[in-house]
Every structure is written in C-alpha cells, then in structure tokens.
C-alpha cells in the first residue's frame, strides 16, 4: 500500500501538469469552423416538368434531391413523382431517405428506406445503392430494393450531358428497372420492368440555378409487366413532349 501512495500522488500531480504542458506545446487549439468538417447543403430539382403524351395524357413530374452533410456523411432525401392532371392522382410517388458515404474517388454508397405512396397500394423498401461518376462522364445511380414482403428489384439511372455550348446542354437519361420477384398488386412482373429514356435541351439562364428545358421522353414496359398493364387496360408505351426547368439552390 505504502509503495503505491507516492506513485498515485505522482500520477495525480503529473496529470495536473499535462494540460499546462499541452498548452505550452500547442498554445491554442483550433476550434474554429475551419477545423471542423465542412457542412454543405443542397437542393436540386433535376426534373420539374410538364409532360404531354401521344395519347393526350397530361402529367406533372418532379425528381428532386435535398442533402445535408459533410464529405464523409450526407443525409439525402430523394423525392420523385408523376401526377396525372386528368385523374388528379399520383401515378407514382416515391420518397427515399438515405445516408451516403464515399467508397471510392468517384463513387458513394447509399443505404436507407424508400416509401412509395402513389394512388393504389403503398410499398416500403430497404435501399442499398451506389452513385457516382463513371468514366467518360456518365453519372450513375444504381439501387437495389427489398420490399417489406421480400420482393426484390433493382434500378439503374444513367445520365450524360452533351455541351453544345457552355450554356446550351443536351442531357440524355436512361432509367431502367428490373424485378427479381413479382409484385402483381402494383403491376410488376419479373424481368425487365420498364425503361424511361429522355433527351432534354436546356439553357442555363441564371448561373446553374435555373435552366429551363424542352425535351422528349419515351416510357416503355416490358415482359410480364407489360402483360399486367394490358390486362389492367393500360398502355405499355408512351411518348411525351416535356417542358420544364432544372433548379439548383
């Protein structure tokens, strides 16, 4: 016991000296914002548009993205939907809340939840995805979904920008969905479900904050999904003329 006493006393004394020493060496700790991870927020409407189809259907469409976070972690809310003016109903309505972390120089991994609440049955999925910039400047967003009932599907979104000038930009997009299990209730069959291909010509009117565009969009359903659509009295293919704007805040 006695042996320990000076040791403990010494330790206590030593510990009390440490802050002073640390101060002498590093006279002041940088607690300014500069030393903290840079926090960034962003809000972007990649698509905010009016669509007019070849069979006179009129729909409003948005595809937006809100994020907040640092280089190491971002929380991201993704929202997209199609609203039919005729039926006054959401044909699709999808909201995702994901966390995003970098996994390579050009790609991030995402994980989170997706809620689909359109007209008709709702769905909840777990989401796992990667997003980033592939070689040759192709923006990729690939996601894997598992529904609460265990139905699995995957979606791939690709985007490429062609610069006619530094202000006139042609954006080509391809969204494709594949289902690994059938979900008859929402009209999804196994295999390739659907594709949406778009070409939009935009002009950067105010910086990159407001870029109005016009374009064409082609939607198509495939395989079993197409059969279900026909059985339900719907079409399997549509062409749209679109007019809208890309917004970045």
């Amino acid at each position, binding site marked *: 016991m006695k042996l320990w006493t000076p040791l403990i006393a010494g330790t206590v004394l030593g510990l009390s000296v440490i802050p002073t020493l640390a101060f002498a060496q590093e006279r*002041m700790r940088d607690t300014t914002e500069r030393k903290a991870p840079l926090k*960034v927020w962003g809000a972007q409407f990649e698509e905010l548009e009016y669509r007019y189809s070849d069979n006179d259907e009129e729909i409003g469409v948005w595809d937006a993205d809100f994020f907040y976070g640092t*280089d190491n972690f971002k929380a991201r809310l993704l929202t997209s939907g199609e609203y039919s003016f005729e039926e006054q109903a959401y044909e699709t309505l999808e909201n995702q809340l994901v966390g995003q972390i970098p996994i390579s120089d050009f790609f991030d991994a995402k994980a989170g939840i997706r809620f689909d609440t359109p007209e008709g049955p709702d769905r909840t999925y777990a989401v796992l995805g990667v997003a980033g910039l592939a070689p040759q400047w192709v923006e990729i967003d690939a996601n894997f979904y598992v529904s609460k009932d265990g139905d699995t599907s995957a979606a791939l979104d690709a985007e490429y920008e062609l610069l006619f000038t530094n202000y006139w930009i042609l954006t080509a997009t391809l969204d494709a969905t594949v289902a690994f299990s059938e979900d008859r209730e929402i009209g999804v069959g196994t295999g390739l479900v659907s594709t949406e291909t778009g070409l939009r010509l935009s002009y950067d009117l105010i910086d990159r904050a407001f870029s109005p565009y016009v374009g064409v969009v082609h939607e198509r359903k495939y395989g079993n999904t197409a059969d279900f659509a026909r059985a339900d009295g719907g079409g399997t293919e549509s062409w749209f003329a679109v007019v809208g704007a890309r917004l*970045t805040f």
Partner: protein
Amino acid sequence: MKASLPVLALGLLLPVVGLAGEYNLSVDRVQIDTGDFVKEGIGYNGASPGPVLRFKEGEEVSINVTNNLNEMTSIHWHGMILPFTQDGVPGISFPGIKPGETFTYKFPITQSGTFWYHSHAGFQEPDGAYGAIVIEPEGREPFRYDRDYVVQLTDKHPHSGDRIMRNLKIMPDYYNREQQTVGDFFSEASKNGLMATVKDRMAWGDMRMMKADVEDLQGFTGLMNGKGPNQNWTGIFEPGERIRLRFINSSAMTYFDIRIPGLEMTVVQADGNNVQPVTVDEFRIGVAETYDVIVRPKEEQAYTIFAESMGRSGYARGTLAPEAGMVAAVPELREAARLTMADMGGMEGMDHSSMSGMEGMSGMDHSGMKGMEGMDHSKMAGMDHSGMEGMDHSAMGQGSMASAGGASDPFYAAGSGLVPTAANGGKFLSYADLRAQKPLYDEREPTREIELKLTGNMERYTWSINGVKYEDADPIRLQYGERVRFKFVNTTMMTHPMHLHGMWSILDVGAGQLNPIKHTVSVQPGTTVYMETEVDAPGQWAFHCHLSYHAAAGMFRKIIVEGGPESTQAASDDQSGDVGGDA
C-alpha cells in the same frame, strides 16, 4: 524660434524611442461597385479595398481594429514577420475579434517592401476584406523611382464566398464556362483528325478530368485598386519618369498574367523582398504574391495595364496616363488555357503512352516516370534546353525539360498547357529568373526535408495535403533553429499558391545563396518544387494553399515551432529585432 526647441528635443529623442505609429481600422459592411454589378461586401474604414497602410521599417506599430460586423473577424498581415500572437489567424494565433470588439495589434516593423493584409476569418477576404501595406526601408533602395503606385488586384464575384464554396461542393464545375463543347470537338477533329480527337476525349474522360479545369471560379470582374475594367483605375505620370508599380494579387482564386503593351517592366521585388532586376514583357502573379516592377513611359500617351486571368476567363484593367481621362487600347483576351496530359504528370497510374501535347519530346524515356519524381536528368541528352540559359539543372529538383519549339518554363511540367508566353512574343518572367538582391540568411544545409504532397479530388472538391484534410490533420512540428527543406509534390491538376505564415519561404531556383525569398510559392500541376525555411519564429503558424476555397476545403496545416525563446507576448521587445526582416 521657441517652438523649434521642443521639436528639436523631440527629434533627438526619436531615434532612442524608435518610431511608433498608431493606426485605426474598422471592419465594415460596404457596397462594392465593380461597374458590372454592385454587391454588399466587407471592407475597412468603409471601403474595399481598405486603405493603404504605410509603415516605416523600424517603426513599432499599434493598429486598432474595430469589428463592426455581426460575426468574428481578424486581420492577417500577409508576409509580415511578427510575433505569432499578432499574425491574425483565428484559432491559431488568437481567438479572433468578436463583433463590437476592438483588438490592438502591436508589432515591430522589421522589414520593408510591398505586402498586404486581409481577413483570415471565413470568406471575408474574398468578400472584400483586404488592403495593401507599403513599408519604407530604413536605408536606400537599390533602385530609383520617381513615384509609386499600389496596383492591387482581385477577382470580385457577384456571389458571396459562402455561396461559392457551397456551389463548388455541390457541382465542382458550377462556375466553369470554358468546358469543351461539341463545336470544339469538330474543330479539333478537322485539325487533328477524328480518331485522334476521339482518343484524346476518351483519355480525359477515362480519368474524369477536364482540360478546361484551369479556373474553378469564373464569372468574376477583375478589379484593380477596387475599380472594374470600365471604371479604369488610372495612375498619372510625367513622361520620362520612373514609376514603381506595386502589384499585389489579392484574388480569392485567380492568377493574373500582367502586361503593359508598349512598356517593358523591370521586376525589382517579389513578395516584398528585393530581387536582382530582371526586365520582362509580361509576368504571372500567383494568388497572394506581390511583384514590384519599374516602368519608364517616355511618350506622352496612355498605357493599358492589362491583367488577364490565367484561364483567360476574365481580366482587370487600368491605365497609366499623363492626364486623367486618357485611355489606350484594351487587348482582347487570349484563347482559353487548356491543361495537357503533362499537367496530370503527378497522378499515379497514368499511362504516359497516351500523352498528347508532348510532341517534340520523343527520345525521352518515359518508362519509370512517376509523378516526375526520381527523374534522371542524365537520360535527357538530346533535348533542347535553349531558352533556359543560366539555369542550374543539377540543383533543380524537378522535371525541367524544354519541349523543342513549344514554350517552356522549368517551374511547369514539360508540355504543360499552362506555360505562359508573352503576348508580344517577348520575355515572360519565370521563377527561375528570380535572384535575391541580398540573401537574408547564411547558406547552410537543411537539417531535414519534409515532403508535402498536394492532393485533392476535383469531383468531390476536396483539397488536402498528403491526402489528409486540415480537419483530420495533426500539426506539423518544427524545431526552432532548424532549416527545413519543404518538398511540394503537386499531384493535382490545379496550381496551388502555398503560403507559410511567420517565416520566409526560400524558393529553390537553383541559385544557392541567391535563391529568392518569398512568402507564397506557386506549385504548378505535375511539378515538384522545393523551398527552404529557417525556423526562426517560435509559436504556431498557418500554412496553406492561398486559393480561398482550396484552403477552406482542407488544404491547410497548422505548424508548431517547438522550442526557441518564449518570446512572443511578454518578451516580444527582446526577440523581435532578429526574427527576419531585410538584412
């Protein structure tokens, strides 16, 4: 007669007491009118830029800085040798100046020349918080001039610094309007052939790098002493006079190529330290650098001072004229600068076989070249070194290779798309031309070398040193009394003006004792640059890339100088006398 007695007494006392000057600066919200747009910004004593502070070497200054903002502020005296507590970096030298507070900076002036001051808090500097410092030397200057003007440049942008940072983080090419277009593709294809052009685009696309990535921030109006090109800042002269122009680049992000058509410029000072005079037609001023030049207009006519941005996206303009209101022609902007594969030289895993734009370098052995390090100059026989007279290759640490025919500068990667050339075909200043007028320190072997890789990811807009951002980095520890050799290896495709606070940066141009003494050293893409520092200032200091948004994104370090006299606050009077300054 009676009145002269006290004056005489005072005059006798002065040398004993030393000069003391008191200065007052208020930090204010101000309006900035560039001629192209009006915006709210930050300035000093009600204006941006702030007043020119004129000090005298040997003077003991006290500067009262009153913060009229509703946020913390600070002033950093860029290039000044002073106790670290007076250096003005919040979180490193002091806690900053709170709203409504007055902070009194006190330090002795131990040097002379052209310097500047700016806020080191947030993005106040790009928002307008900067000004010039002119220090009159104690002794005679080694050059003559009849009058002098400060010519302070900046890249004033309609957006606030915070917004610019956020936009760059969201979309790194947000401000880049010089990207290659479909039109460029076809004109290149008709010139170089379709396959070559496709191959070229594929090579760049594969790296996800842009040739046009020269300036992150475009859409600015270049200001000269706070005036836009149309407001035309004018300096008056009488023909035959020698005019000293003190160029200061206070830009957030922009390098300028400066020329005065019709006039040669004799560079006499760089970063506040006299250099052996070198006469040039044009020079490039990095962000935060200063160059003093002497011009001698003999004609009774106006001359345009034209400062064109390195990426050619904008310019600042002013005039030298015998009378106010006279103007001279304003040159057109030259074609946008494009990076070449040579500028990617620092990137690992590069395929040199697909390097375009390196014509004239055949016969060189690219194998085993990685980031230009470890290059064997002996293998480079048969290369054309003309135009590089007077260079000491043995002392140059970098790939200093001249591509036959093309422009070359040992401080750029061979075949770099950024190598500057004079608009009139004449002499363009290179770092390699700079020689100190008088060495500040005795020549000695460095005690150690510290390698700093300048790193970053353009797509994420992250910038770092050795792959580590400031937020995650430990301080760099130096020992008082050592002489450190810093090795900068630029692995990015952007130019970084590296600025060390508190101690001089002796740039290695291969001139030994006569290496120029700077406070900011530009490191071009794909190059390695060395500088040496006599660690003679105790305390802790900032060390960073002076591009505002690179520094904020993480290309920043704290340096701690361990040991040495515990001078700083208490004993500043004893120590300050020998912490640098013009020898």
